[in-house]
């Protein structure tokens, strides 16, 4: 870009910003529920200042050092917008709406030189397209981070180890057991056994939608590891259809204590620890 054009854009910065703001405010997709006009104005001015400064250096390469501040501002902006709940289209339109403002200024300044006007327009067009792609990219990256964090949190939350009684742990498993989750389940359970010195662990699988041979193998592994540590493992919550699949698959669970419900597993645990729970007639 010729520095002359950059200079003229800089000269008209105030008007540029005004036109841009007008365009944005007039747009139907404006999310005035998510962002106040003052904030929008501040963001726009911030970006425009950085952009004009970068243009002033004569560079048009988005990857160049001169454009670093611009891309930084854009990335931050689109990440915050992603968190606020903007759609990618809306974030991208924020940058693209600047085009129209640029054209208006350029047209006024270069009215007498159509060839240059065309060239400059194409360049501005390319530049803003590139910037809009950056917002899109960071937007997606921001969303992905959110999803990854949620995945981690879900796998952590979904395998709680509960101490149901002195010496008895229970681990209700919810959702499909895959290798990665089994590892988490096993580690959590074993750590907790050491921590609490529990002698019995109840694995409740009533929240597991289906048991295939792989899941069964994972369960057997967990039970074996618990045994190696010196604790006993009871599998509970085996539903009728799961019992059917297990037998049809020919999986041998005969040396593992299994119970239909958590309650009966707890009862078994009590009897293994010689604990007696009785109903009393005492009224509180």
């Amino acid at each position, binding site marked *: 870009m010729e520095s002359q054009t950059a200079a003229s854009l800089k000269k008209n910065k105030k008007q540029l910003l005004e036109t841009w703001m007008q365009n944005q405010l007039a747009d139907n997709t404006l999310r005035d529920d998510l962002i106040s006009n003052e904030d929008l104005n501040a963001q726009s001015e911030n970006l425009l200042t950085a952009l004009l400064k970068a243009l002033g250096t004569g560079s048009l390469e988005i990857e160049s050092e001169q454009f670093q501040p611009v891309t930084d501002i854009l990335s931050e902006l689109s990440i915050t917008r992603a968190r606020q709940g903007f759609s990618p289209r809306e974030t991208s339109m924020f940058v693209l709406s600047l085009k129209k403002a640029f054209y208006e200024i350029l047209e006024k300044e270069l009215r007498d030189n159509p060839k240059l006007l065309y060239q400059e327009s194409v360049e501005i067009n390319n530049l803003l397209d590139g910037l809009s792609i950056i917002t899109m990219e960071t937007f997606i990256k921001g969303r992905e981070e959110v999803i990854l964090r949620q995945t981690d949190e879900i796998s952590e939350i979904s395998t709680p180890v509960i101490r149901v009684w002195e010496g008895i742990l229970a681990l209700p498993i919810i959702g499909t057991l895959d290798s990665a989750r089994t590892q988490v389940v096993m580690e959590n359970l*074993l750590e907790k056994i*050491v921590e609490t*010195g529990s002698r019995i662990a109840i694995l409740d699988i009533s929240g597991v939608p289906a048991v295939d041979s792989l899941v069964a193998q994972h369960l057997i592994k967990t039970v074996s590891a618990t045994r190696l540590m010196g604790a006993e493992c009871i599998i509970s919550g085996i539903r009728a259809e799961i019992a059917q699949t297990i037998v049809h698959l020919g999986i041998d669970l005969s040396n593992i204590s299994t119970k239909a419900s958590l309650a009966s597993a707890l009862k078994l645990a009590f009897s293994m620890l010689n604990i007696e729970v009785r109903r009393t007639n005492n009224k509180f």
Partner: protein
Amino acid sequence: MDRIPILRMGGFLLVTIQVDLYDRLALTLENDLMAMVSKMEARGVLIDISAVSIVDSFMGRILGNIASMSRIMDAETVVVGMQPAVAITLVELGLTLAGVHTALNVEMGMELLRKKIGPIPDNEEDLYDDII
């Protein structure tokens, strides 16, 4: 050469492994322990591996061997204090140590041995005296 101490506690033998077992050491332990079981006529062997953080298939096999050999000599083996990471490794290796009893700690291991073997008379000679 390094040796792992074998302590006698009544009719039981207590082995606490405080170092990482390398193959030679494990073999020496196996020999010493079997000699001791035979000499003392021990009824139970308690192996504490709470300080062992690394385990391989060889050590898993040695533990299994000790258990089988002891059983032939009428002694029960209890392995206590296995670390979670060690347990996971053994399971991944496919070694479930069948035939080895396990307990969470030495105290529970002792309790388990007593339950398995029944009361051991303090002094066997007294017992024979009574019978005669």
